[in-house]
C-alpha cells in the first residue's frame, strides 16, 4: 500500500467521514440474535460483542467490553447487496400488437461496505468472476460493484468454524479493499491501512496521525494469531479427489444427515445460483420477470421434461460440494470456498464441509 498506515481512535469517526463523503454505509448490525449487514449510522456500530460458532451453532454474545470487532461473520454476506436476493429484470405489458418490454434497474447509490472480512473480500472477488464470465457480464452487478467502496476489518480472532488460513483468503486483507482496519489492544485505537486512492480520499477527511512501526507490527501479530487459532483444514488435493470420486460411499453417508434445506447455499458468500420467475397481475395484462436466489439443493433446480436430474439428496450434496471445491476451479480458476465457515455454523445438522472433504480425500482413488 503506497500510503502509510494511520492510527484511528474511534471507528465511528470513519463511518462519519464516509457519510460526509456521500456514501451510504452498510455495516454490522445485530438483529434477531445474529450479526447482519444493514445500512448504519455511526452510532449503530455495535461494541462489546463476540460470537460462538460451531457446527450447527451460532450465538452472538457479550464479549470483552470496549472491543469493536471481536465477532466474526454472521449469516449475512455482502452478496445480498451486490447480488440482491430478489431482483426485477424487466416488466412486460400487453398491447393490441402483443406486448411491450421495459428494462428495470434498481437504484444503487455510492455505497461503502464497512467491516468486510478478508474471506469476504475473497468471496466478492469470486462473484466478480461469476458475473463477468468472459462471455457475458451482469450489468447490474458491475454497476453496483463499481459504486462500492470496501472498508475491511482484519479479524482479531477466529471462530471455531473459521478456516480462511487454509483457503489462503485471510485473516488479513492483503488486497481488494479501499481501507482496512485492524483493532489494536483495547482502547488504543485501530490501525487504518489505505488500499486505494478512493480510500485515501476518505481517510484524508479525518486528518489522522501516522501509525508508528510498533502499531504496524502489533496489527500483523494480531492477524497471525487469528490465523494460528484456526483448527479446521481443507485437504490440499480436494479438487482432484472430488473430481475422481463421484461414487464415493461418503456421499451416501452425508446424504443420510443432510436435510437438503439449502441453508448452506443461502449463507455461502459465493453461491450464485438463481431462478427466474414470471409474476403476473390478476388482469394478466402486466407481467414481470424476477430473478431470485436459488439453490442446487432444491428439487426443481434440475427439472427438465420428464423430471429432475438430481432427485436424491446424495446427488444434490455431491453437486454442491464438488462444485464448490472442485469444478469451480475449472469454471473460474479458483476454489468456490473462501473458508468463512458459514455453511458449517448454519447447517441445522452441523455438516462440516472440511470433515466431508477429508473423508472423501482419505478413501477412494486419488
Amino acid at each position, binding site marked *: 500500500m503506497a500510503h502509510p498506515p494511520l492510527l484511528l481512535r474511534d471507528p465511528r469517526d470513519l463511518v462519519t467521514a464516509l457519510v460526509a463523503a456521500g456514501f451510504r454505509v452498510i455495516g454490522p448490525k445485530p438483529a434477531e440474535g445474529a450479526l447482519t449487514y444493514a445500512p448504519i449510522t455511526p452510532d449503530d456500530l455495535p461494541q462489546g460483542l463476540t460470537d460462538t460458532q460451531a457446527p450447527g451453532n451460532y450465538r452472538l454474545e457479550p464479549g470483552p467490553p470496549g472491543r469493536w470487532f471481536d465477532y466474526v461473520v454472521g449469516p449475512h454476506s455482502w452478496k445480498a447487496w451486490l447480488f440482491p436476493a430478489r431482483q426485477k*429484470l*424487466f416488466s*412486460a405489458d*400487453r398491447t393490441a*400488437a*402483443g*406486448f411491450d*418490454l421495459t*428494462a428495470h434497474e434498481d437504484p444503487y447509490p455510492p455505497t461503502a461496505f464497512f467491516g468486510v472480512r478478508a474471506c469476504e473480500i475473497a468471496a466478492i472477488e469470486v462473484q466478480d468472476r*461469476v*458475473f463477468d*464470465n468472459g*462471455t*457475458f*457480464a*451482469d*450489468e447490474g452487478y458491475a454497476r453496483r460493484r463499481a459504486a462500492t467502496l470496501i472498508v475491511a476489518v482484519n479479524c482479531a480472532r477466529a471462530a471455531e468454524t473459521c478456516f480462511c488460513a487454509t483457503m489462503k483468503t485471510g485473516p488479513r486483507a492483503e488486497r481488494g479493499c479501499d481501507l482496512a482496519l485492524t483493532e489494536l489492544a483495547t482502547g488504543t485505537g485501530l490501525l487504518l491501512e489505505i488500499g486505494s486512492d478512493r480510500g485515501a480520499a476518505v481517510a484524508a477527511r479525518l486528518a489522522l496521525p501516522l501509525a508508528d512501526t510498533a502499531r504496524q507490527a502489533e496489527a500483523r501479530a494480531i492477524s497471525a494469531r487469528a490465523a494460528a487459532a484456526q483448527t479446521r483444514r481443507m485437504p490440499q488435493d480436494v479438487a482432484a479427489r472430488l*473430481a475422481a470420486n*463421484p*461414487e464415493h460411499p461418503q456421499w451416501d453417508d452425508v446424504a443420510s444427515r443432510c436435510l437438503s434445506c439449502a441453508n448452506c447455499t443461502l449463507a455461502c458468500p459465493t453461491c*450464485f*445460483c*438463481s*431462478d*427466474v*420467475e*414470471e409474476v*403476473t397481475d390478476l388482469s*394478466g395484462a402486466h*407481467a414481470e*420477470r424476477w*430473478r431470485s436466489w*436459488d439453490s*442446487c439443493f432444491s428439487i426443481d*433446480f*434440475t*427439472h*427438465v*421434461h*420428464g423430471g429432475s*436430474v*438430481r*432427485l*436424491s439428496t*446424495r*446427488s444434490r450434496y455431491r*453437486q454442491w460440494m*464438488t*462444485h464448490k471445491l*472442485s*469444478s469451480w*476451479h*475449472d*469454471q473460474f480458476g479458483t476454489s468456490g470456498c473462501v473458508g468463512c465457515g458459514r455453511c458449517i455454523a448454519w447447517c441445522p445438522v452441523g455438516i462440516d464441509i472440511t470433515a466431508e472433504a477429508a473423508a472423501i480425500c482419505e478413501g477412494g482413488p486419488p
Partner: protein
Amino acid sequence: MDPMLPRRYRVLRARPESAGVATVDLAPVDGPPMRFAPGQFNMLYAFGVGEIPVSISGDAAAPVLTHTTRDVGPVSRAIVGLKEGDMLGVRGPFGAPWPVAAAKGRHVLVVAGGLGLAPVRPILTHVLANRADHAGLTLVYGARSPQDLLYADDLRDWRARPDATVEVTVDHARPGWTGRVGVVTTLIPRALAGVAPDSVTAFLCGPEIMMRFCVQALGQIGIPPSACWVSLERNMKCAVGFCGHCQFGGDFICKDGPVFRYDRVAARIGVKEL
C-alpha cells in the same frame, strides 16, 4: 446490452409437426434478423408464462428464425399454441455450435432421436446447400412411431437427394408403415456401408442413452469418440452462465455447450444424477 432482456419477434408462420409438436418461423419486430450458427439455441419468452431454452431449427442462411417445440410444460405449451401474428420474446443466440465448418471434406453423419432432429436440422440444410464441401452426408433418424416423425417435407426432399443417404426407423410401427422398425444404433453400420470410418464426423442428438449407445456402435466400426459431437440438455434459467442450473461437472451447458465433443463429456455422461 442486457443479456437477460429479450427482443420481440412476430410469428410469420406456425405449423403442426405431430401431436403436441409445432414449428414456428419468426422475424424480429424491429432490428435486423438474428444471425446464428447450427447447434445454437434461444431463450423463448411467452408473455405471462415464462421462458425456456429451445434449439434453433432453421437454415442459418435464411432470414427467418425457426423453432420446433414439444408441448411438455406451461411455456412450451404456450409456444406450441402460437399462431401467425402472435408475439414472442427471444434472447440469443446462445451456446457452442456444431463444428460444421470444421467437417469440410469429411463425411457428415447425423444421428437424431425423436425431437433431436430439431437441433441438427441446420446441419442438414447447411451441408446440403454446400454439399461439394463434404465427402458425404448420412442421416439416421429414429422416432417412437411414424406419427412422431418431424419435418415430413424435408425428409421427403432429403431422401430424394442422390448425394445423401437417409435412413429412418421407428420404435413402434403402425399400419401402413413400410419403413424400418428398431433403434437407430442398429441402422448405423448399414447407413455407413462403404464409407471410410476415418472420414466420418458424427453429430448426435437425442436422449443421452441413445447418444451413448450410438457412440459405442460407432466405435465398433472404427469411428472414435473424438469424431463424435453431441448436444446436451439441462434446466436453464439464464443461458449466460449466471443461474447455475445447467452445470454438468465443470461445464455450463449454456455457454460451454450445448454441443460438446463426446470425449470431453464421456466420463460424466455415465454418472447418474450428475
